[in-house]
């Protein structure tokens, strides 16, 4: 690259990526007629609906992390341990959700949710359909988010399992008299700490920022609330957006730092982390 080209490219990129952030800060603190004030930020906590939607999002996030780890970890470990033919199947099953954009998934989910009560109104299953759509805690969102998180949770776990000799670990534990569950919990899982942390962080970030599925199915977690609040108070919504960004970024930076510390620097081994981080973003837009 030409001597002048590199600084120019970096400068333009810097301007493009920094200006919206700085402008957002200016937008929230410099209010016409009032001068500099932090009122956009202090108002957040008393804004109607803020606490409820944030708690809902956090609850959904915790439930999704729990569900997705609960179903993927045993499958991944089992595939690694004793059923090599299960591995490609898992790979395909966990990659499939990438093929269906969130809007399309929601369209399908909405159809199922409408269809259920119509056809099943006389059976006990009807209650299930009502229960999964309870607005206080919509389980249907947990299910949808778990599916959306699958591709990168699987990648994180797969990368983690690759660097551990699961079979020897389990054998050693079994030879010491440990039961199967115990071998899994006290020998395998601690060695997968990094991968599990990875997967959890990514899922958490996904759920906290998710808008599409929730808004189209008519629920109001955090991201949906921000959009609703913007109608009456644009500065408030920008302020909340900045804070939620900050939160997500801290999460992801923590993840990158953890990832870096666990690997020797300057290997291509670091890229899967970033790639899976990036892939995740795809599902929240």
């Amino acid at each position, binding site marked *: 690259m030409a001597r002048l080209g590199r600084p120019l490219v970096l400068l333009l990129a810097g301007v493009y990526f920094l200006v919206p952030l700085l402008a957002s800060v200016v937008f929230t603190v410099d209010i016409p007629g009032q001068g500099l004030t932090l009122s956009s930020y202090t108002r957040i906590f008393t804004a109607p609906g803020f606490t409820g939607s944030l708690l809902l999002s956090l609850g959904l996030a915790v439930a999704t992390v729990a569900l997705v780890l609960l179903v993927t970890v045993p*499958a991944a470990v089992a595939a690694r341990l004793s059923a090599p033919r299960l591995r490609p199947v898992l790979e395909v099953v966990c990659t499939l959700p990438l093929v269906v954009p969130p809007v399309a998934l929601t369209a399908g989910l909405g*159809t199922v949710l409408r269809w259920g009560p119509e056809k099943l109104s006389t059976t006990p299953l009807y209650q299930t359909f009502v229960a999964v759509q309870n607005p206080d805690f919509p389980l249907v969102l947990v299910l949808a988010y778990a599916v959306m998180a699958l591709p990168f949770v699987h990648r994180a776990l797969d990368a983690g399992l690759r660097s551990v000799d699961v079979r020897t670990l389990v054998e050693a534990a079994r030879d010491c008299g440990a039961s199967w569950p115990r071998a899994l919990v006290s020998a395998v899982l601690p060695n997968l700490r990094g991968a599990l942390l990875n997967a959890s962080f990514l899922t958490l970030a996904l759920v906290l920022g998710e808008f599409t599925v929730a808004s189209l199915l008519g629920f109001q977690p955090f991201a949906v609330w921000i959009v609703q609040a913007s109608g009456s108070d644009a500065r408030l919504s*920008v302020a909340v957006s*900045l804070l939620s960004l900050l939160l997500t970024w801290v999460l992801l930076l923590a993840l990158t730092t953890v990832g870096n510390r666990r690997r020797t620097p300057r290997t291509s081994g670091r890229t899967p982390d970033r790639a899976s981080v990036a892939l995740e973003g795809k599902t929240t837009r």
Partner: protein
Amino acid sequence: MTDGPAPHPVRRRPRAGAWLAALPLFLVVGLAFGLPALAMADGAFTVADGSYGLDNVTRSVDGAYRTALLGSIELSALTAAAGTLVGLLLAQAVVSSRGRALREAVLTASGVLANFGGVPLAFAFVATLGNAGVLTTSLGLGDRGWSLYSFWGLALTYLYFLVPLMVLTVAPALDGLRVQWREAARDCGASTWRYWCHVGLPVLLPSLLGGFVLLFGSAFAAYATAAAMVGSSVPLVTLQIADALSGNVLVGQENVALALSLDMVVVAALVMAVHLPLQRRSTRWLA
């Protein structure tokens, strides 16, 4: 990194046990993914009198829906092309610089920014370039005909997450271009131009193409950013589906929405079918 366990004799657990351990996963995927996918396909091919037919699919590629589909494809192709080019330039600028700190900073920032999507991104751009945005008012852009709530405004916004995504995709490939290759080419009398034509670009091509389709798919599937920013003033297929789902249009359009969803799945499937093999191919050079 070892792939696959060492081949030594072990007590084998019965295979069935292993498949049993995967059962909960299959159940969740079947319930939350398979069922909706089936419902989508079923609805897309169900016509007015309850029988199967191609009516919805035909309507989903006609009229306003066709405009939206083409609008989405146009926006995605344009932003993906721009994102590929800018991402390549930026990655090359970083990779070829000597400062490790700069490189680390840009790559980490890219990892973070590639996640910057959806609602917060939309509001950051509204605060910057929206009608009352900081830049719009201070530079008087409104009088010059600028509107963020347009095709170009959306394209500018999408690049905010597409460029970092491209940097992440192509940086490892640029790292894979050995200095020795360039030296060897120069020693054989090749110009910089010839080096890029015959060595650089062919090696980068899988990553670039793979990155392009990844960016395309990412822009194509995006909904939250557009919904929070422009409402439905720009015709996009995701916005059309959302409209039909929330009953903003004529009754009976739900099945057309499902057909549109199916169209999206076809496009996304094509994207993955191109991206995954290319990604695998490009990693060959990075070992």
